[in-house]
């Protein structure tokens, strides 16, 4: 596979990790070759070994990991045999890497400009005289507005997208030949994701760099990469060009992955593998209004504004006025309906869901649930309210939302115990087992603790807990954001089935428009605490009226085949 023009040539790479339970092979006998100027995507679900492969190339495996077999040739150098001092010289100068969480990759107490200077000096690319100019120039190249000013900024003063640009500037400061981007846009908004990915692709072209993009998102990889490598459980299952992968996926796993990726023009059931039983999802007949929100407002006092300024300051001065996280929201959720609440981070969708859940008190406005204004009941005393069991929530991060010291059984039993819905221990056990079966969680897993469960299983425990009291309204806060696509496909289908059988209403909070399209009847688009647009899912997503909605839709990755 090695050709004259290839920059990186990996042959038979095997990476092993020494653990307490013996040696684990994270990567098994893989071959990858990367030509000069090429963009290669490595796609796989969690545990596929895609990140480990890149760490092996950069030789930054942690102490327990080692390259057990194979060779890595980079620009004529054997990386697997290179000494640590040679690697130090290569890293940053010839090959760079950008990581998932840009904030964690930056030193929080150093000005970003100085951090770029550090890299330049480390590799003798700049002296004390021209370091500042070169750093500002590096900032300009990643399209940061007013780079002279930003030079003096600290990471916490910048947004997530801005931080990722700084990290890219750091990685590219010394004009490396190879850039490895490990999930560079996970956790960023779609519009930011688009801007960051376009920046990476543009810089790659401009400089004739080679790039490896590591991602779990097949759509993203297909949009921005020339070639794609699909990995499963430490082995490569398929290598092909982006067009080929989407048009004619050769391997079963690739097909399964492609099917599970939400995209326009398909139904929920299309996400599942062929052999899955596909009873059609019963049609939805929304009934009377269940939840009515009128003029909902949440204000936060700005920090640093003193009491005197609050009382005597000009109430028109925006620096003194309280910050409105949610600004006059009005909408309805009907019985049996699922409504999507969409927007980018900071748009107030989480604040809204917290207020609806009665975990947070609104500043103004009414939340009328089944005829009763629950907005007037303080959040503190709502835990004991008779309406509490009827409004439940599924959280974004299934790991974070399960008490590490409770077994799955105890977690699901908690609501039943609190509201005394069960009579005696046997009844409780029976009901928990029934709930576990409803959400497709094997009953023998009930006695496990969260750290012994997989992500999908934890998500099911979270869902079982939320539906234990047969609520009327369930708020789903990005319930699949932390899951692999194949698990996401199963969980989304489960949610749709549960809604149909139990007659619940959903408020689905998400930033992923593809997912919202699949599961929601109506969509509300939020920006800056206000509703920009609302209407039926087809109307909003296919014929958007507001510019902002159009922008959001345009920012979604459009893989070549889907675009055609």
């Amino acid at each position, binding site marked *: 596979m090695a050709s004259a023009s290839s920059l990186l040539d990996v042959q038979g790479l095997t990476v092993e990790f020494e653990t307490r339970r013996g040696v684990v092979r994270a990567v098994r006998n893989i071959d990858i070759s990367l030509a000069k100027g090429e963009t290669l995507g490595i796609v796989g679900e969690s545990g596929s070994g895609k990140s480990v492969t890149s760490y092996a190339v950069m030789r930054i495996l942690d102490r327990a990991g080692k390259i057990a077999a194979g060779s890595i040739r980079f620009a004529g150098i054997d990386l697997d045999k290179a000494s640590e001092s040679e690697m130090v010289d290569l890293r940053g100068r010839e090959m760079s890497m950008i990581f998932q969480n840009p904030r964690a990759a930056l030193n929080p107490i150093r000005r970003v400009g100085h951090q770029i200077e550090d890299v330049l000096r480390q590799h003798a690319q700049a002296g004390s005289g021209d370091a500042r100019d070169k750093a500002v120039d590096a900032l300009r190249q990643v399209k940061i507005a007013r780079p002279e000013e930003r030079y003096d900024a600290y990471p916490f003063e910048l947004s997530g997208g801005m931080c990722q640009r700084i990290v890219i500037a750091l990685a590219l400061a010394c004009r490396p030949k190879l850039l490895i981007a490990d999930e560079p846009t996970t956790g960023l908004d779609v519009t930011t994701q688009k801007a960051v990915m376009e920046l990476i692709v543009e810089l790659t072209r401009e400089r004739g760099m080679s790039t490896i993009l590591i991602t779990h998102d097949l759509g993203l990889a297909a949009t921005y990469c020339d070639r794609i490598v699909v990995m499963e459980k430490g082995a490569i299952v398929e290598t092909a060009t982006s067009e080929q992968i989407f048009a004619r996926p050769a391997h079963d796993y690739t097909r399964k992955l492609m099917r599970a990726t939400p995209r326009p023009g398909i139904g929920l059931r299309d996400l599942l593998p062929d052999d899955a039983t596909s009873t059609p999802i019963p049609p939805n007949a929304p009934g009377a209004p269940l939840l009515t929100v009128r003029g909902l407002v949440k204000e936060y006092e700005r920090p640093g504004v003193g009491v005197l300024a609050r009382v005597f300051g000009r109430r028109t001065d925006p620096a003194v006025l309280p910050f409105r996280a949610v600004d006059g929201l009005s909408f309805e959720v009907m019985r049996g309906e699922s409504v999507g609440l969409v927007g980018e981070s900071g748009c107030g969708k989480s604040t809204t869901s917290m207020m609806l859940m009665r975990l947070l008190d609104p500043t103004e406005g009414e939340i009328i649930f089944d005829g009763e204004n629950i907005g007037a009941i303080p959040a503190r005393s709502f835990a004991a309210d008779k309406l509490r069991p009827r409004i439940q929530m599924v959280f974004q991060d299934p790991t974070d*939302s*399960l008490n590490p010291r409770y*077994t799955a059984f105890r977690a699901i039993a908690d*609501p039943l115990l609190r509201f005394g819905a069960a009579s005696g*221990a046997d009844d409780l056990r029976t009901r928990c087992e029934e709930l576990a079966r409803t959400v497709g969680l094997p009953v023998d897993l009930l006695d496990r603790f969260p750290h012994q469960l997989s992500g999908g299983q934890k998500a099911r425990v979270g869902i079982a807990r939320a539906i234990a009291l047969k609520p009327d309204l369930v708020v789903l806060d990005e319930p699949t954001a932390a899951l692999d696509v194949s698990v996401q496909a199963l969980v989304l289908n489960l949610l749709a089935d549960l809604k149909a059988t139990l007659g619940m209403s959903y408020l689905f909070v998400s930033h992923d428009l593809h997912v919202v399209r699949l599961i929601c009847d109506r969509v509300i688009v939020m920006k800056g605490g206000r509703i920009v647009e609302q209407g039926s899912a087809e109307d909003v997503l296919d014929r958007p009226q507001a510019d902002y909605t159009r922008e959001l839709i345009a920012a979604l990755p459009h893989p070549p085949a889907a675009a055609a």
Partner: protein
Amino acid sequence: MTAAPIIKAPQRRTSARFAALSSNLAHARYVIGGNPVTGFAFLLLFLLIFCALFGPWIVPYDPLASDTSATLQAPSWKHWFGTDQLGRDIFSRVVVATRLDMTIAVTSVALVFAVGGLAGIASGFFGGWTDRIVGRIADTIMAFPLFVLAMGIVAALGNTVTNIVLATAIINFPLYVRIARTEASVRREAGYVMAARLTGNSDLRIALTTILPNILPIMMVQMSLTMGYAILNAAGLSFIGLGVRPPTPEWGIMVAEGAGSIISGEWWIALFPGLALMLAVFCFNLIGDGLRDIVDPQRRT
């Protein structure tokens, strides 16, 4: 600790508990195996506990009986650690003193854990005025040099073992408040705490059944480290004549009694109780480090 009292545990649950327990034991064995010093510290701990429980029955002499014919004898086969000015056997006194010193340490740490830990959880979890009041009390205590404060408390309340326990607990209060407060305030925003609210748990219930068990491992580490300090503190008070009174065998008093004789050549009177003190403190500090490794989830791979 997590089981709700009203559930009668079916068979499967117990087996799961057992599996969890055995996996914890396996982990503990792994950590101790990887760090022999921790293993040594645990051996030392068992020795201390043994002495504290059975001390009075295993020692060769009555620790209080004086023998004027055998005063100030150097260590020998008859008297392993020698004898003091009154001819009392130092070995017997050192072993018997273990119980008193350990009792003071254990009770004071238990007290400060209960009061300081709960105050810290309340402070971190509820915030607002609770936080301000608890925080100011802790700050006030911190404002004094701690040993001087302990001296003051014992001097004011009277020379009793109860007051030593109380004084040791009070000076450790700010430390426990701070740890519990930080850990609780981090977990206050955790998803599982919000989930507990949604399932109808009151704030008080969440603080006690959700927050407390989750910060317990970190508190355990702190307790072990404080144990050593509490022993030192009790001995220190006795050394300067506050607290335990002679002729009760206690390491601090024994060091004080022997201090004057070191210059005249009778080094064994102060050395052996001092060594016992050192080993006890050493043991608890090492166990604290070992426990930190055991509860550190980063090492749990």
